[in-house]
């Protein structure tokens, strides 16, 4: 009896590790360990084939002297700032669509549609939309201002043109999060507030938005991560151009280490480490909040 109980007990101690092993080992091998390896590689001068030479922090000091690095960093900042607009915009569309009229379900799905399409296709769609001579947007701008602008060929506008393309699916994503959130707000509170004559913006601000906090948190996480991960659209729409003006850290790293001509592994790893460090700030914030929720649960 005692023996049986102890074998049961040890089974229950061992079981989680057996269940975890395949997934966790693969995740360690392909995700966790490579982070450490990249940090390690960033201290070397290495072309990916020959012998690697330890150079300490040289890659980083080179990086801080590199104009392309500052361009990338600056663009990443714009990406992050402007991407956050997806949250209020998504909320606005969700409020607009949160009705029960005939066919509203189909409207909701079609508004969500851009999120399902790959960024490669979104990039191609917007390249077409922006194309000089025949693109739709230059036509519209031309109609109002009399001059057509080639957005993606103009250093002043190219990054913003790409960010706008990225916002399209991102707004759709935030919208769907808020639609689900709105579906689950407490109707009694809303009715009670209505009795107290709260309406319009005051109702939204004091009653509805506080109840949407979980949705806002997820929207914030996916938007920040999405903004800093931005790579696909830059690659498809401008390949970093014109004159490298639309580079972001992720694309700059790709150019240095992974593209056809990129063999600067150590340098690219250093760029990746900087991007990782920036994201780590946000990841830590997110994890801390999630951890607090776990503790309270």
């Amino acid at each position: 009896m005692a023996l049986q109980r102890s074998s049961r007990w040890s089974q229950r101690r061992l079981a989680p590790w057996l269940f975890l092993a395949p997934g966790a080992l693969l995740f360690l091998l392909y995700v966790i360990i490579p982070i450490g390896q990249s940090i390690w590689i960033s201290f070397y001068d290495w072309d990916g084939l020959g012998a690697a030479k330890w150079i300490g922090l040289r890659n980083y000091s080179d990086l801080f002297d590199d104009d392309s690095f500052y361009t990338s960093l600056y663009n990443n900042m714009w990406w992050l700032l402007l991407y956050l607009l997806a949250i209020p915009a998504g909320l606005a569309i969700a409020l607009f669509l949160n009705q029960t009229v005939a066919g509203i379900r189909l409207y909701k799905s079609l508004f969500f549609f851009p999120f399902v399409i790959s960024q490669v296709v979104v990039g191609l769609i917007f390249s077409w939309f922006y194309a000089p001579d025949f693109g739709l947007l230059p036509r519209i701008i031309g109609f109002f201002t009399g001059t057509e602008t080639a957005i993606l060929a103009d250093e002043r506008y190219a990054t913003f043109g790409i960010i706008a393309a990225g916002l399209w699916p991102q707004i759709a994503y935030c919208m769907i999060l808020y639609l689900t959130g709105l579906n689950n707000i407490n109707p009694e509170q809303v009715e009670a507030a209505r009795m107290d004559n709260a309406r319009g913006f005051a109702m939204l601000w004091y009653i509805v938005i506080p109840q949407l906090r979980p949705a806002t948190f997820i929207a914030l996480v996916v938007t920040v991560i999405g903004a800093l991960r931005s790579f696909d659209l830059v690659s498809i729409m401008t390949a970093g151009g014109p004159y490298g003006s639309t580079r972001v850290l992720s694309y700059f790293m790709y150019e240095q280490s992974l593209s056809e001509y990129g063999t600067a592994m150590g340098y690219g790893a250093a760029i990746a480490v900087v991007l990782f460090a920036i994201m780590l700030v946000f990841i830590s914030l997110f994890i801390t909040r999630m951890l607090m929720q776990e503790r309270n649960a």
Partner: protein
Amino acid sequence: MFPKPIQKSAPWLQASYKLLLPLALFIWLLPLIGIAVTSVRPSSDLAAGNYFGWPSRFAGVENYTAVFTNSNIGWYILNSFKVTIPTVIGAVGLSCLTGFALAVYKFRLNLAVFFMFVAGNFVPFQILAIPVRNLTIHLGLYDTITGLVLFHVAFQTGFCTLFMRNFIKALPFALIESARVEGVNEWKIFRHIVLPLMRPAIAALAVLIFTFVWNDYFWATIMAQSADVRPVTAGMNELKGQWKVAWELITAASIVAALPPVAMFFLMQKHFIAGLTLGATKG
């Protein structure tokens, strides 16, 4: 309900809402409508500057046929399926196990392991790229479907574990307790009690991971070289270079490439949204 149901508003407001809906949708999808129309234009329209008018005739059949006969896109799409389907099976399968382990057992490192999966899921791809590519080369799997699948399975297991663990946590724990009292072993508890209840989570994750992996571009670019491995996202970039201004072909190919996840979304909409909005209502 907020905002106030439109049915309780003045009739003119109701009428304008019904008018505004299709108009807003039209503007929202304008870029998409634009490429859909372009994809059925004859190339002569584009040459003659008819970009926005009604297509002079319907050239959809010839454009879409040309896309398949002039390029490898058929192969690329097949490659995408070959990468995506095993990844979905692998990542969802592994995360059923990891999610179960983290939701059901109390052990000291539980939260640490859980947050390893969560945090890993948020890192930029670039910090993984060089070591992962080297690892793949060392395994002799560079430029193979298997090489891509292994990475995707590993990476997606992070998100899937988060999802599965939270899903199982919400199941009634008494079910597991009473099975233990009856002396059912841990594997059978997983297999016969928990797994059948996970069907909705498995469906939701399957459509989500399908879409994520189908739409992956970065790894498709750096881990695949040859035409018989290259997924359609990387293939599209190549075709864009090849066709330059033949927008009727580029747009048609874009629509073809976007179709599988779109079909998946419309067929499994409920699961897709349930997966995407997990956690948007509580906590």
